[in-house]
């Protein structure tokens, strides 16, 4: 499933990347089956688009000429509200600010996403924050790209639909799925969390999933797992992405150094007096939210190599996780045979 966002524009403003698009009018978004049942297989529109998790605002920014990042990779995304812990969950920012969170792959043929995208979204006053079909495009700023290996995603509060995002540098975000998203979308995130933690052995093995297309031509994927040959071909055909593949290297080797530096930094911090700049005027730098809820760092072990990588030694698989994410969300959401991906 390649993502070719429509409606991309080159109209930008001083402060923003303005995104305009047209949205198909869908019926209510309350059931995955509705989408599958309504359309014939060969003409089925992408249900992810209808749910606002694909080809959304974040995808359009990342794929826009201004950034032109990961142009052939699907982006799975949603709109979140940043909250903080207390007696009750409280919003950190004004209601007009939300956070777009998404995952994608630096190379589209990777079996799992390896990139996390974060953007801040400023909605116009009084504007409905409906993610998949806003009446007027909000202002969206791409803030950071993080290799997913340096990030841990967890479901923090299922009832409140809150995810916890923790980076290897101990920065923690609590992100509440925007109420405009249907429950199905939170199930996708739960599924993603599970996949990132436990791997996705069903990527190419689950017989329920019918692979109807392939991002990587079959003759490109050597059965012997000759990934070097495949990568060489990719480099020749997509020079713009060949460097991005470097991101996949060196991440695990980075970990031990990060921990060492973190230890040093923590020591440094404890010895420093916080100095307030005259211009800062008390603006929230989210330090409060960067304090981890636990110092238990055992989860870092999962950064080294995910289960899925061990199961997929060749490194390249014909089906993107992003395609299988929706299809494997569960029997209550998907029919037994994947007739749609």
């Amino acid at each position, binding site marked *: 499933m390649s993502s070719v966002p429509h409606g991309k524009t080159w109209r930008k403003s001083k402060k923003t990347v303005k995104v305009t698009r047209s949205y198909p009018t869908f019926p209510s978004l309350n059931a995955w089956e509705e989408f599958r049942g309504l359309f014939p297989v060969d003409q089925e529109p992408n249900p992810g688009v209808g749910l606002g998790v694909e080809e959304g605002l974040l995808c359009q920014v990342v794929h826009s000429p201004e950034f032109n990042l990961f142009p052939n990779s699907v982006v799975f995304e949603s709109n979140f509200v940043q909250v903080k812990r207390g007696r009750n969950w409280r919003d950190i920012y004004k209601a007009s600010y*939300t956070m777009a969170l998404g995952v994608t792959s630096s190379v589209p043929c990777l079996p799992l996403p390896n990139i996390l995208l974060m953007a*801040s979204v400023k909605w116009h006053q009084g504007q409905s924050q409906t993610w998949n079909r806003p009446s007027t495009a909000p202002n969206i700023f791409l803030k950071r790209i993080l290799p997913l290996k340096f990030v841990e995603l967890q479901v923090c509060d299922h009832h409140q639909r809150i995810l916890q995002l923790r980076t290897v540098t101990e920065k923690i975000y609590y992100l509440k799925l925007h109420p405009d998203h249907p429950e199905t979308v939170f199930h996708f995130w739960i599924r993603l969390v599970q996949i990132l933690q436990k791997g996705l052995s069903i990527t190419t093995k689950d017989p329920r999933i019918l692979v109807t297309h392939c991002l990587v031509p079959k003759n490109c994927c050597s059965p012997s797992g000759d990934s070097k040959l495949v990568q060489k071909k990719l480099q020749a055909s997509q020079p713009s992405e060949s460097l991005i593949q470097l991101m996949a290297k060196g991440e695990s080797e980075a970990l031990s150094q*990060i921990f060492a530096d973190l230890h040093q930094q923590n020591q440094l911090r404890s010895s420093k007096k916080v100095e307030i700049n005259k211009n800062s005027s008390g603006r929230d730098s989210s330090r409060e939210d960067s304090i981890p809820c636990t110092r238990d760092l055992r989860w870092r072990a999962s950064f080294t190599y995910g289960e899925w990588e061990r199961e997929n030694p060749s490194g390249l698989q014909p089906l993107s996780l992003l395609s299988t994410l929706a299809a494997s969300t569960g029997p209550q959401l998907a029919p037994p045979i994947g007739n749609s991906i």
Partner: protein
Amino acid sequence: MAYAYLFKYIIIGDTGVGKSCLLLQFTDKRFQPVHDLTIGVEFGARMITIDGKQIKLQIWDTAGQESFRSITRSYYRGAAGALLVYDITRRDTFNHLTTWLEDARQHSNSNMVIMLIGNKRTQSAFPWTGIICIYSHKLTSLSAIFENVDLESRREVKKEEGEAFAREHGLIFMETSAKTASNVEEAFINTAKEIYEKIQEGVFDINNEANGIKIGPQHAATNATHAGNQGGQQAGGGCC
């Protein structure tokens, strides 16, 4: 607001030299003494005006740790300008410049403009100066004096050494302070001016995106006459 050109910048250099602080000072006009280690890329952007033309700077702030080096290399592509930063109070960060420069030359386009920045990243030795700043703006200048004295005493890299390195390798050079904002504007804007001049001279092929330059939707001149601040692009709160 429409812009004539978009320039992609990348900020590189050893960890802890103040790359993120420089970006924050330039885009938000504020200084954050304690900053999380950068992993991946943090983005910033700001509009400036050069020769009456609106130019958007899209700035990629990268991780400086050696262990992230292979990841950072993937971000050089398509950069029109690079800010190569070292800390004037840490000799080792100056010594590593050659390695950074080799990486930059190898993974970027040959026309990329590189600005060498000797940044003053050091914390004040007088912890009470910050407190004084809060309660009395009048004493701010006093604390700045203390700080400069303190910094100079801890300087490990002479300004002349930075200048010589820049001369030898064909770089522009400035000393900055992310904390006091000294020369921060100039560092970013002078780099843009150099890129702009190269465009005028036809050195950059602006139709080749690999050069890190994009033509804006409306290549129209504005009424502005001076290069300078057009306000922080991402200021004003917002999440993450």
